[in-house]
């Protein structure tokens, strides 16, 4: 205990990347093996939803965590993607894969409609204006009294994804692998964006706006671009969700679902790359555990959200990454630094 530790504090040991690749591969293997180990329709359905919501949360984290845009229109864009593919399939007989792409494109266009008035504003104003758009979308869908877009019951019977398979579990497993592939591709693209020059621009806007502006970062254009990119992925996930379930309705815009989604990225750790995925898994599984205590669910998530903001501002991703650092140093000491 008497050994001085001040020198260690003064120069913290640099992070080691030695475990990054093995952990990534391990995570992918677990994700690939999961439906084979949990081989029931019940579990595979949960896994599919985890993938879809993880995409939504990755896209949300891109703008909330990395670009500092407090947009709460995320679910509105998600549901818009779903409605696009559903209506195109129902009325225009579009194939579902084309509808999925169209959903992403429509959500991107809608994000410009939302972004052009919102992104010139700052902070609390952005939060409120995007929330206002969320409510407008919800009301437009619900108030459709002549049922052209299904009113409050939404759109059903427009078809469902079918990638073949003999049994119900087998069919679901194939959908899961497509969803997982989508999640991996979206995450990889988001990783590239965050570490591109544009990523540097919006991260600097988040951290020190005055400095970023003085270095010539075109704030409005950068924000609008990253907002549109995030919306593309969100709409994609929404269209995939509608095609997987074979239905989409304004219920998906319920404020409770928005809170659940928020809990995922806050508890997981926003502004960290893997936080939203970890949060999605944790919150989704906890949600399933609490299925028998329906009334308590929002209470538990409300408390978890509060405790997380107060005591884990970077979510559970932070202690996990600290743990990983220690393990990596331990490995480094044993096998020597990689070159």
């Amino acid at each position: 205990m008497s050994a001085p530790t001040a020198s260690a504090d003064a120069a913290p040991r640099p992070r080691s990347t030695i475990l990054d690749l093995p952990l990534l591969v391990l995570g992918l293997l677990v994700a690939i093996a999961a439906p084979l180990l949990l081989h029931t329709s019940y579990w595979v359905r949960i896994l599919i939803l985890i993938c879809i919501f993880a995409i939504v949360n990755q896209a949300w984290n891109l703008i909330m965590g990395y670009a500092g845009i407090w947009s709460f229109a995320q679910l509105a864009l998600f549901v818009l993607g779903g409605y696009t593919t559903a209506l195109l399939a129902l009325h225009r007989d579009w194939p579902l894969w084309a509808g999925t792409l169209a959903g992403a494109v429509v959500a991107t266009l809608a994000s410009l409609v939302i972004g052009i008035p919102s992104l010139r504003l700052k902070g609390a104003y952005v939060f409120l204006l995007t929330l206002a758009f969320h409510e407008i979308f919800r009301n437009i869908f619900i108030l459709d009294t002549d049922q052209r877009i299904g009113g409050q019951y939404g759109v059903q019977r427009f078809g469902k994804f079918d990638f073949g398979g003999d049994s119900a579990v087998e069919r679901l497993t194939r959908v899961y692998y497509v969803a997982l592939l989508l999640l991996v591709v979206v995450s990889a693209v988001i990783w590239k964006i965050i570490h591109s020059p544009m990523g540097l621009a919006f991260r600097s806007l988040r951290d020190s706006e005055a400095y970023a502006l003085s270095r010539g970062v075109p704030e409005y254009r950068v924000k609008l671009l990253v907002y549109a990119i995030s919306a593309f992925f969100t709409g994609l996930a929404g269209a995939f969700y509608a095609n997987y379930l074979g239905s989409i309705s304004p219920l998906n815009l319920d404020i409770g679902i928005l809170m659940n989604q928020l809990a995922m990225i806050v508890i997981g750790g926003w502004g960290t790359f893997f936080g939203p995925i970890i949060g999605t898994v944790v919150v989704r599984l906890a949600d399933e555990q609490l299925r028998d205590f329906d009334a308590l669910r929002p209470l538990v998530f409300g408390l978890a959200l509060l405790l997380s903001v107060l005591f884990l501002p970077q979510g559970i991703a932070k202690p996990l990454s600290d743990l990983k650092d220690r393990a990596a140093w331990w490995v480094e000491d044993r096998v020597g630094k990689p070159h």
Partner: protein
Amino acid sequence: MSQIPLVLYQGAVLGAIYALMALGFTLIYGSLRFLNLSLGSLFTLGAYVAWVVSAGIGLPPLVGLVVAFVLVGIVGAGIHEVAVRPLVGRPGWEIATIISTLAVGIVIQQLIQIVWGPRNQGMPDLMSGSARVGPVLVVQYQRVAVVVVAVAVMAALWWLLTRTRHGLAIRAVAQNRDAALLGGVSANRIFLLVMALGSGLAAVSGVLLSTVMVSLNPTVGLAYALRGLVVTLFGGLGSITGTLWAAFIIGLFESFVAVYFGEGWKLPALFVFLIVVLVVRPSGLAGVSAEERT
């Protein structure tokens, strides 16, 4: 055209109630510079407290109103200590406090649901009876009483803010926090006072609204918190006179939409209105720019 008295009458009632709600937001934003999203649930909590006092214990509704103001004010101060004060000053604390107060709001709403159940409850009337004025308009004394109480509360607030030393301190902090601190104002005491006042106003607003609406249920606060926020933004965040104007303009607008287009279009029309306002005049009525307010 014949509907105009009805629009004015309903608009005035709504405006008075929204003003109380929005004053809660704007007082808190004015001095602490954050949005307290737990006000929606405190609005509901206030209504339930008054309901217990008047329908449960059997005391007059006005006593319930006062009890709700005091109790919810204390809860608001507690929220400040638990969910706001630890966050202030951290990097990204503005959004962190939005999320933490939202979380507190969810918890309170769920507790209300567990304690009093999800069913609709009826609030006893402040007054009964009505009078017919002109061909279309039936004025209920109940609604007149609501406006009178709301105006009385606002007058009391005006007196507190302009005629007392605490009010002076609140206004000083709102104008320039650092200068106020240098002048010897105890910031944390003022923050606690403002949180308690704002929460109490939300509670009063909840009590009044639940007497004119048909029913009271645990989720009623959310829609009105959103309206309170719209009013606050329209008025110009942090400006009290702007908020009062905005409350009555939005009350009139809403009753206009409800009378001519139907109840269902109130909220969407309101949000479209908000978007137009923020695009044309981001600083709201009061004219302080959004840049200065962040």
